[in-house]
C-alpha cells in the first residue's frame, strides 16, 4: 500500500508510543465517546435495525460471491452512460492510470474529495512525483495535509488534533498552499471553518480535474454514490471538467434498490445522523451538468486476495462507517496512527493484513491489536464478525498455511518464534491494565445486545485456542483468560 506507511513500527511499539501522548488520548476519548453515544440514539429510532443490518450483510455477500458478474455489469452501465472504466490490479497501476489521465488534460493540479482508496494507494505522493499537486478538500484532510500528518480515523481524520493545534497549523501552513489564513485567526471552530472555506474556494473555482472515491457503485445502473457533510465533495464532483473516481472493487451493490439499506445504515452508524448533509449520485456524464469526462478506476490491490479467504472475505462487506473504531478500547488508547494504515481500528486490524499480507512485523502484529471483546461486531452495520477474522488471522500468523497473495496461491510459514504473538501480549497488557476502558466496551456490548443477537466466539476461535494449547472456554472473557494466562506464565508455564 502507500509508501507513507512503510517503515512504521509494529502496532505494539507504535501503540505504546501513542498511549503516552495524553493530549491525543484525551482528544480520542472525547470524540469516540461522543459519537458512540449519539449513534445509539440514532439507531434506536429504527425499530428494524437488526433486519437492515442482516440485509446489508446479505446484499454484500451476494455481491462478493458473484463479484465478476457485477463488475462486468457495472462496467457496461458506466460505459453506456458515457464514462470510461479502467482496471488497476495494484496501487502503482491505479496511480499510474490517474497520473496519465491528469496529464492528458494538460493540468498540473487536482482537487480531491476524501477517499480512503487513494490514501491506500498513496496517490497524492505518486502524483507529486509526476509534478501534479493534489489538494485535499475535506476540512480534516486539509488539516492533516497542511500539518504533514496522517489521518487517524476513518470518519474524522484529524480527530487527534484540537482546535488550538488546528489554528497553529492554519496560521503557519496555509500560505504555503494558497490563500493564507486570515489575520488574527482564533481557535473558534466557526472561524477555522471559515478560513478553510476561503482557502479552498479559490481552488474549487479554478479546478479542472477532480479526484474522488465512492461509497457505493450500483451495478445495474452504473450510478456512483458519494456521501459527505461539508459540500467539498459536491464541489469536486460537479465543478471540474474531468472527474476521476478511484474505487475498490468491493464497493459495488447490485441494484438501485439496495441503496435503501445502506443510505439508512451508513449515516446513522457513522455520524449518528438520520442522513448526512449531502449525498451526490451520478451516472456517467450528464449534458451540461457536471464533468464532461468521467473515469472510473476499479482498484483490486489485495481485495481479490481477501476474497479468496472464506473466513476473511467478510471484511470486504465494510462500508467504512467507523463505528467499530469508536467502541474499540484498543483504538481509543492507541490512536489511529498505531495501525500504520489508512484503515485503523478493528476493521484495520483485519483488513490491512489481508490486503497487504502478513509478511512484515507491522501487518503480522495487527490481528493482535484487539482485546476480542466483541463490541466491534456488535455495532457493525454489515455484521462483520471482526473477532472471528482476528482469531483466524492470528492462526495464520502463528501457524502459517495457505493464502492467496497477488492472485497466486501460496503457503506461508509460521511467524518466527511467534514474535507477533508475544508482541500482542504486550498490547494486551496495557489494554487490560485500564479496566475503565475495558468495562465501558463491555457495557456497551451488553446494552445493545438485545438488538443484535451476540455470537459466542466462533469455530475458529476455538480452533486457535486449542492449537495454542490454551483452554477453550467460549464463555470466559478475554480479561479472565488473560489473567489466567499471565498466571500460568508467571508460574513458568508455556512459551
Amino acid at each position, binding site marked *: 500500500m502507500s509508501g507513507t506507511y512503510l517503515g512504521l513500527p509494529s502496532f505494539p511499539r507504535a501503540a505504546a508510543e501513542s498511549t503516552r501522548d495524553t493530549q491525543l488520548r484525551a482528544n480520542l476519548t472525547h*470524540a469516540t465517546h461522543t459519537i458512540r453515544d449519539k449513534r445509539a440514539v440514532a439507531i434506536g*429510532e*429504527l425499530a*428494524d435495525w437488526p*433486519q437492515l443490518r442482516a*440485509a446489508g450483510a446479505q446484499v454484500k455477500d*451476494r*455481491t462478493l*460471491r*458473484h*463479484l*465478476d458478474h457485477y*463488475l*462486468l455489469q457495472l462496467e457496461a452501465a458506466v460505459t453506456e*452512460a458515457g464514462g470510461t472504466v*479502467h*482496471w*488497476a*490490479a495494484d496501487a502503482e*497501476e491505479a496511480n499510474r492510470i490517474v497520473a*496519465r*489521465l491528469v496529464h492528458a488534460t494538460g493540468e498540473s493540479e487536482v482537487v480531491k474529495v476524501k477517499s480512503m482508496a487513494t490514501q491506500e494507494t498513496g496517490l497524492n505522493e505518486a502524483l507529486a512525483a509526476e509534478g501534479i499537486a493534489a489538494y485535499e478538500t*475535506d*476540512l480534516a484532510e486539509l488539516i492533516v495535509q497542511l500539518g504533514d500528518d496522517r489521518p487517524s480515523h476513518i470518519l*474524522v481524520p*484529524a480527530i487527534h488534533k*484540537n482546535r488550538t493545534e488546528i489554528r497553529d497549523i492554519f496560521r503557519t501552513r496555509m500560505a504555503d498552499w494558497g490563500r493564507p489564513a486570515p489575520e488574527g485567526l482564533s481557535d473558534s471552530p466557526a472561524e477555522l471553518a471559515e478560513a*478553510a*472555506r476561503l482557502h479552498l*474556494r479559490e481552488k474549487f*473555482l479554478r479546478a479542472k480535474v477532480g479526484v474522488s472515491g465512492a461509497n457505493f457503485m450500483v451495478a445495474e445502473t452504473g450510478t456512483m454514490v458519494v456521501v459527505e*457533510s*461539508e*459540500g467539498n465533495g*459536491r464541489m469536486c464532483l*460537479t*465543478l471540474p471538467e474531468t472527474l476521476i473516481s478511484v474505487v475498490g472493487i468491493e464497493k459495488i451493490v*447490485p441494484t*438501485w434498490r439496495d*441503496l*435503501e439499506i445502506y443510505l*439508512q445504515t451508513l449515516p446513522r452508524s457513522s455520524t449518528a445522523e*438520520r*442522513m448526512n*448533509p*449531502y*449525498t*451526490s*449520485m451520478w451516472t456517467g456524464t450528464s449534458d*451540461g*451538468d*457536471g464533468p464532461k469526462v468521467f*473515469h472510473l478506476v*476499479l482498484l*483490486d490491490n489485495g481485495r*481479490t486476495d481477501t*476474497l*479468496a479467504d472464506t473466513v476473511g472475505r467478510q471484511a470486504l462487506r465494510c462500508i467504512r462507517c467507523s463505528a467499530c473504531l469508536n467502541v474499540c478500547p484498543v483504538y481509543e488508547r492507541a490512536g489511529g496512527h498505531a495501525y500504520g494504515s489508512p484503515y485503523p481500528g478493528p476493521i484495520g486490524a483485519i483488513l490491512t493484513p489481508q490486503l497487504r499480507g502478513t509478511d512484515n512485523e507491522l501487518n503480522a502484529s495487527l490481528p493482535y491489536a484487539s482485546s476480542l471483546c466483541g463490541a466491534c461486531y456488535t455495532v457493525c452495520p454489515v455484521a462483520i464478525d471482526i473477532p472471528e477474522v482476528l482469531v483466524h488471522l492470528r492462526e495464520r500468523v502463528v501457524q502459517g498455511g495457505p493464502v*492467496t497473495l497477488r*492472485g497466486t496461491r501460496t503457503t506461508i510459514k509460521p511467524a518466527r518464534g511467534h514474535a507477533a504473538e508475544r508482541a500482542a501480549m504486550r498490547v494486551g497488557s496495557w489494554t487490560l491494565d485500564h479496566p475503565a476502558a475495558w468495562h465501558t466496551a463491555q457495557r456497551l456490548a451488553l446494552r445493545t445486545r438485545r438488538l443484535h443477537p451476540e455470537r459466542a466466539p466462533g469455530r475458529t476461535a476455538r480452533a486457535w485456542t486449542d492449537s495454542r494449547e490454551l483452554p477453550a472456554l467460549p464463555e470466559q472473557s478475554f480479561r479472565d483468560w488473560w489473567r489466567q494466562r499471565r498466571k500460568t506464565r508467571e508460574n513458568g508455564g508455556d512459551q
Partner: protein
Amino acid sequence: MTDTSGSRAEILRRIRQALTDVPAEETPGDVPVARDYLRVHAPRSPRERTDLLAAHLTDYRAHVHRTEEAGLPGTVARLLAEHGTRRAVVPAGLPGAWLAEVSGVEVVSGGGGLTAGELDAVDSVITGCALAVAETGTIVLDAGPDQGQRRITLIPDHHICVVRAPEQVVDSVPQALPRLDPARPLTWISGPSATSDIELDRVEGVHGPRTLDVVIVTAQSSA
C-alpha cells in the same frame, strides 16, 4: 484511453479463482437477501408526514417555512430580503409566479450555464425539488427544470428550496428511491453544509450554502 485490458483480465481471473468455493451452478439470486426491514417506520397521515419533515429539517438547522400556495411569492420575497440578497440565480424552469413579489433583486437565469466564478458573485438560489424524505429530513434535487444544474445550488451562500406537500413528501428512504431516476444527477440535502471535524463541534457552511431555507407549500384545501 488507458489500456488496462491486461489487468481487467487478471482481476477477473483472480476473482474467479478466489470464488472456487461458490458452486458453479449458483446464481446471484441464489444468495438470499431477506428484505424484511420496514418500508416505513410509522403510519402517518399526510399532515404528520409533512410535520415530521419540518421537524427533522429543523433539527439539522435548516429554516423551515410553511405557507399555502398564495403565500409563496411573498415568502420567497421576504426570505431574499432577510438575507440581504442583491442578486439571485434561478433555474430556467422555475415557475415565474414564485418570483412575482420579488423586488430590488437582480434575478439571473442559471439555465445558460454561468461559470463557477459568476455563481460565486450570487447571493441566493431559488429552486424546487424532486421530493423530500420525512424520516431523514432530506430534500432531493434531480436537476429537473425547476432545479437546474447541481452547481447553482452549491456555490451561492443561501438556498431557498420549495417543497410541495403532500405530493412531494415521502416517508422514508425506501419510498424515495423508486421515485427517482438514477440516470439523472441527484443531490440529497439534509440541512446546510456542516462539519464536525474540529473537536466534533458542529459548524454550518464549510463549502455549500450556509443557509438553507425550505418553504413547504401546501394547497389551500389540504394540511
